[in-house]
């Protein structure tokens, strides 16, 4: 049972504090939590902490700490699930989750908490049920504008009606502007994949892992039915075979309990009546077998002269995406030996940037076109540790602390598994209103893309 719930900013300022049972301590627990968190020894985990018969369990979300305290030996899975559900819920109601939105919507947050938890027990977390009880309207900082260019492109919006849907369109409260009906008829469907890859120094692939999600954010009235058509060649498991060719294969799939799978077997169609707000429709995983080539290949060559301490790293990065696709915000991170001082660089195009930061080389490539090849030559000086003989050791071995290289990037309009949403159809006919806007977006991004050197 939950005793207290509070939200702290990233600097430890309490934004929200609620005591449900009055059985433990006072307000100072929030401060106590932050002190414990910052004073924790490096090898201990902050996820669950203990102080005088009270357990602190928290998640970090959008730079905030969402914390519950309890005095009982509860289910950690359940509590963490509740915390992340609360984060989604607050995001739904306040538009987005952040220090600013929370402090602007304190009354709304307290009202929500009051309904979600009673005496430390969960009542309901369904956006739909809660709608009936929530009276406060969300305060939004700035009105939604199509020209909010800062966020366009970052998410790589793809449209069905040749319009651009800025990603900020999705970050507004589900319940705001009750009067303004025209704004409400929108639905966002995102296919997001996280890619983790490990490549050995000889170029062989050691590990590929794709974690995918289909996320839906609906502003339509609840209960309106929609059908989501997936790629017809979509197969689950190693043995299933569909269509011609290799098909789009994933290892495991799980669906939200709202999803009706009657047409899934025959036509790969998901039917559901989603409530307003955010919902993860489907999760899937895929390891070891990718249908398409990996997005990036790195060909490093290292020259290391131990005597003079001169280290030369030549990196060639090849993008194996289809010609029309591109990768955005590509950043290569290469840890360097300790004490590297100077860096000189020759980069293959002017928009790239490279610098030394925190003992590592950071090479930024804002945009990489499919099929292209980029390179960088970096020269560094590594001071020779005192007392080390200047010769006699092999010069071919790379110095300590060099590598492995890791890449981070976003691939808009691309899924590594090949899964696509064929269509999104709504059965709902809004009276007197234009057709609802449907935004379907595909995105892959790197979770850990590591290349050993």
């Amino acid at each position, binding site marked *: 049972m939950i005793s207290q719930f509070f939200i702290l900013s990233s600097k430890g300022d309490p934004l929200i504090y609620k005591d449900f049972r009055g059985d433990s301590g006072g307000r100072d627990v929030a401060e106590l939590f932050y002190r414990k968190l910052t004073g924790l020894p490096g090898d201990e985990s902050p996820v669950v902490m203990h102080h005088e018969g009270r357990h602190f369990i928290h998640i970090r979300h959008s730079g905030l700490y969402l914390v519950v305290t309890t005095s009982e030996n509860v289910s950690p899975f*359940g509590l963490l699930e509740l915390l992340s559900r609360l984060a989604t819920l607050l995001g739904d109601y306040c538009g987005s989750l952040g220090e600013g939105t929370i402090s602007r919507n304190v009354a709304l947050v307290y009202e929500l908490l009051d309904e979600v938890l009673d005496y430390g027990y969960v009542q309901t977390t369904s956006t739909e049920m809660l709608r009936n009880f929530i009276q406060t309207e969300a305060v939004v900082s700035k009105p939604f504008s199509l020209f909010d260019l800062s966020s366009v492109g970052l998410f790589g919006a793809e449209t069905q009606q040749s319009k651009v849907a800025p990603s900020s369109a999705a970050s507004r409260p589900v319940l705001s502007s009750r009067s303004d009906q025209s704004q409400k008829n929108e639905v966002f469907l995102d296919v997001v994949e996280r890619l983790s890859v490990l490549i050995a120094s000889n170029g062989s692939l*050691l590990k590929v892992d794709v974690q995918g999600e289909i996320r839906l954010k609906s502003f339509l009235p609840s209960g309106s039915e929609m059908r989501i058509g997936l790629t017809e060649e979509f197969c689950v498991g190693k043995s299933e075979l569909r269509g011609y060719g290799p098909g789009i294969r994933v290892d495991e799939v799980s669906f939200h309990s709202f999803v009706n799978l009657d047409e899934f077997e025959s036509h790969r169609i998901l039917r559901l009546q989603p409530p307003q707000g955010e919902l993860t429709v489907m999760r899937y995983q895929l390891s070891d077998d990718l249908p398409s080539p990996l997005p990036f290949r790195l060909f490093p060559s290292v020259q290391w002269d131990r005597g003079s301490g001169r280290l030369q790293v030549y990196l060639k990065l090849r993008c194996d995406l289809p010609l029309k696709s591109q990768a955005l915000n590509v950043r290569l991170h290469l840890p360097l030996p300790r004490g590297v001082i100077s860096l000189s660089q020759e980069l293959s195009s002017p928009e790239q940037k490279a610098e030394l930061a925190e003992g590592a080389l950071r090479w930024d490539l804002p945009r990489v076109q499919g099929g292209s090849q980029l390179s960088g030559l970096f020269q560094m000086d590594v001071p020779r540790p005192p007392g080390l003989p200047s010769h006699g050791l092999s010069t071919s071995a790379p110095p300590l602390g060099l590598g492995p290289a890791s890449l981070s990037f976003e691939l808009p309009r691309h899924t590594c598994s090949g899964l696509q949403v064929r269509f999104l159809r709504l059965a709902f006919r809004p009276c007197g209103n234009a057709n609802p806007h449907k935004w379907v977006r595909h995105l892959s991004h790197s*979770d850990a893309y590591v290349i050993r050197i």
Partner: protein
Amino acid sequence: MPYLGSEDVVKELKKALCNPHIQADRLRYRNVIQRVIRYMTQGLDMSGVFMEMVKASATVDIVQKKLVYLYMCTYAPLKPDLALLAINTLCKDCSDPNPMVRGLALRSMCSLRMSKLDQWGQAEVLNFLLRYQPRSEEELFDILNLLDSFLKSGSPGVVMGATKLFLILAKKFPHVQTDVLVRVKGPLLAACSSESRELCFVALCHVRQILHSLPGHFSSHYKKFFCSYSEPHYIKLQKVEVLCELVNDENVQQVLEELRGYCTDVSADFAQAAIFAIGSIARTYTDQCVQILTELLGLRQEHITTVVVQTFRDLVWLCPQCTEAVCQALPGCEENIQDSEGKQALIWLLGVHGERIPNAPYVLEDFVENVKSETFPAVKMELLTALLRLFLSRPAECQDMLGRLLYYCIEEEKDMAVRDRGLFYYRLLLVGIDEVKRILCSPKSDPTLGLLEDPAERPVNSWASDFNTLVPVYGKSRWATISKCHGAERCGPELPKTSSFAASGPLIPEENKERVQEVPDSGALMLVPNLQLTADYFEKTWLSLKVAHQQVLPWQGEFHPDTLQMALQVVNIQTIAMSRAGARPWKAYLSAQDDTGCLFLTELLWKPENSEMQISVKQNETRTETLKSFISVLETVIGTIEEIKS
């Protein structure tokens, strides 16, 4: 039947049901209701007249009541809000004088199925069910079958709650437990690669818990536990632990390759954790690991070298076959070690295996030269012992500096422990070199201890009740301290205190002998003096037997293995092997035999963090009476020492 869409039918029926003329005519009213039921049976959606049907339930006509209740039970799931209205009528009917009406109302109330439980409710109910004890095997499996769908839930809280319930209910069916753990593998692995770090951490803790019982359970998924550089420290450490535990013949190459990459991580703490991990894998895959560790020495980094040397020290003690390789790797290390722990390890290695390391005396000489500026007393103690040992095997090279070191320790050293140690060795040398050899040349390794120290596979039942709680997340030992200070004021000491010995004064051999004579009288147990058992024989017997008795005694504060060993000797219990003094947790293996030939093999496990001593006794013949007597002897000895110390 007239050709009408269901909407028109509903409209028409609604009108009829509301018509006061029809309501007044009992037969016509019942007729209309019958029509509703008929359409309902044909599959037309009649939920539109729910309101009117609820009104129709307030009647004295039992037939009509029955029909309406049938209707309500069918549509209540669709109209939970309106079904609430019916409850009022049902409650009223429950106090009707007619028993038939009462029964009908009660039955209908029970069959009103309203909206299903959400995930929070499910988790709560699963938790509550843990208290239930099935009465028969059939009932048990019925329950398990009903619960099966919860294992497939999309909510991790529900899946883990259901898993725990399965594990607890099926405690007598290990194959069912294993089956459940296989099924929960997917959800757990998904949680381990979740975007939420917190969920990932909790899942990793549970994976480790499962690995304790089923070591091979996640071996084929080892890649899922590779670290990514952006992960926080606490997740990386958990993953490294998991990798150590799931290593097997097939994946050892890849896992070691991965771990080697971590050893040069920018974070020194993480690098050291990875090296220790390789060290623990080395107990099984010695050659490969020693080679990797030796390569790491070539990097000449202080934080790496010190941990590698400490790993070597522990390794040669447990796996003597790698001594040669370690001895070859050591020269040159001394330049890159600055901290106390690393120096101690290196000096110990040079002392014990110095005859195989050509430059050992010269390295020790450097330490002797700089002993004045040495800040750690523990290093000086280690140096004294090591040099004396090396002196025994290479006297010519060591004699001079041994003299200098002893002189310094006795005359100039300010730390009393170091001085006493110096004096002790000095006097020992005066007695004669044979005596020194007898005392200092103890075995150089103890592989049996390593085998016995290997964490035995724990049965699932030993942790099933901790699954999906905070216990695996804190770790067992931290949880023990937490629950101790938590429950201290509530329960007080739970363990029987051996208070009867509190008054018996300090331990002196005479008094103890008296007590030994008391004990056999009471329990008819006579332990044979001077029992000789080899470590090998002990190990074989120990592994082949089951634990006959296990208990925990309180043990606060300091601990002196020597005193305990002496006291045990007095009651004819021999010590076969024990950990170094100061090791945590500390272990000892004891053996004893009574006059009928019954063997008692005992393991003492002292965990300082729990302040308790765990005793496990194995017996080669099952004899409960003598076992009891033996336990009481052990309790007496341990209790007495505990009392004296405090």
